[in-house]
């Protein structure tokens, strides 16, 4: 999974930043990290914005990867309810979301 790393202090971020929140540096480089993590919380959306209504119900999870790196993403429907601490793996990123699958 590709993330952004501050060129000065090496703190990692997922969505790109203009300024490093840790050291104030403004140059970043791409870094590959393992996409394995766990769910730290989740919800199932039943009432969605109009453009998402055809997808309800859908699961959104906050996933913690290595190095305390966290991201909010979608769970690939797997027919089971997500739980806190459930292990997940990064699947893909598209124009909508970072997608994770329960493992």
């Amino acid at each position, binding site marked *: 999974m590709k993330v952004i790393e501050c060129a000065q202090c090496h703190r990692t971020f997922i969505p790109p930043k203009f300024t490093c929140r840790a050291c104030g540096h403004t140059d970043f480089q791409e870094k590959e990290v393992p996409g394995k993590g766990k769910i730290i*919380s989740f*919800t199932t959306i039943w*009432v969605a914005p109009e453009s998402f209504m055809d997808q309800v119900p859908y699961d959104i999870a906050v996933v913690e990867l290595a190095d305390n790196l966290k991201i909010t993403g979608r769970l690939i429907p797997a027919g089971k309810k997500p739980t806190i601490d459930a292990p997940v793996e990064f699947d893909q990123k598209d124009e909508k979301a970072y997608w994770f699958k329960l493992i």
Partner: protein
Amino acid sequence: MGLRSVSVIGIGSTPFARLEGRSLLDLVNQACNEAIADAHIARDKIQSFYLGNYSAGILIGQETLAPKASYGLGLQGIPPTRVEGACASGGIAFRHGYLMIATGLIDFALVAGAEKMTEATTERNTAALAAAADELENRCGLTYAGAFGIWAHRHMHDYGTTRKQIALVSVKNKRNGMRNPRAQLKKEITTDDVLNSRLIADPLRLYDCCPISDGAAALVLCPTTIAKDYTKKPIEIMGSGQALGTINIYEADSLTAFSATIRAAKQAFEMAGLTHNRVDVVELHDCFTMAEIIDSEDLGFFEKGKGGPAVEEGLTQVDGRIPINPSGGLLSKGHPVGATGCGQVYELVKQLREEHENQVKNAEIGLAHNLGGTGSVSTVHILRRK
């Protein structure tokens, strides 16, 4: 720091409701004229106007609202300023009116908050709310109810907070709202009603969510030294805090606390020179039931994790140890986004004047807490009867 003491000398508010056929400027006008009349001042005394409004551009296609509103009120040549911080817009406006007087720049400020939501299409309301959210979280289909669903699940996991305790926030606030003529949802409901209402974002259901509303509230402020010339019951602003939190869920250190609230509360309590034990009544930001439990802990009224049991034990009822949202809160009163922060101060001033329809006994010190965005910005104000 050499700040002057400032007091609220006038208050005004429309009902918070679906106010069909009434424009945003009409609502601002009503609330402001009421506040000016309540303060017994000539309007040419007003030296500054602050307006909290979140999203009139998207919702009703109107911008440049502060000049329009102050011109409409017959104010002449004063500096008009609109501020925006999502659901905390009203609290931020109040703080800036306060600061202008506290720092000695002016003597009289008019502060208002307003939003017109119910006549905008669902599409525009969705777009307006989404505009406050983190782009990545917004794009994946997260809603604000969903964000509070995420925080609720983690709070339940870490502290054993029960679904019933969360539901009881709504039961309490709707009961409080029944006595408030400005409240939108006046309905006695039971825990079962909450738990059987339709799912919005697991674990939160319809009765866990505040309604969409129209409304405006306004306040007149002046230095405490001259406040008694205008009102028998000036309400002093003892402390004011405003702080940044995180602008998304995933970069926050905690999923069970809002750092913006904790920081704003610390500033306000330090300025006031007191601790949470001295507060008699609280109006806090219960946009969802879960928010009230988290806020009540972040503000220091309960240890982290004890907010749920506190509701169940009745500690936050109007006759409890620390009454929270005797107005009905956002859950019952409604949430015209930009108006909410000023509406909370309006309700507190009525409490501290001992004129509230759902009066807390012997209320001398009150706290107002406003939260905007994804825990992004918060204001806390501490007020007392002089």
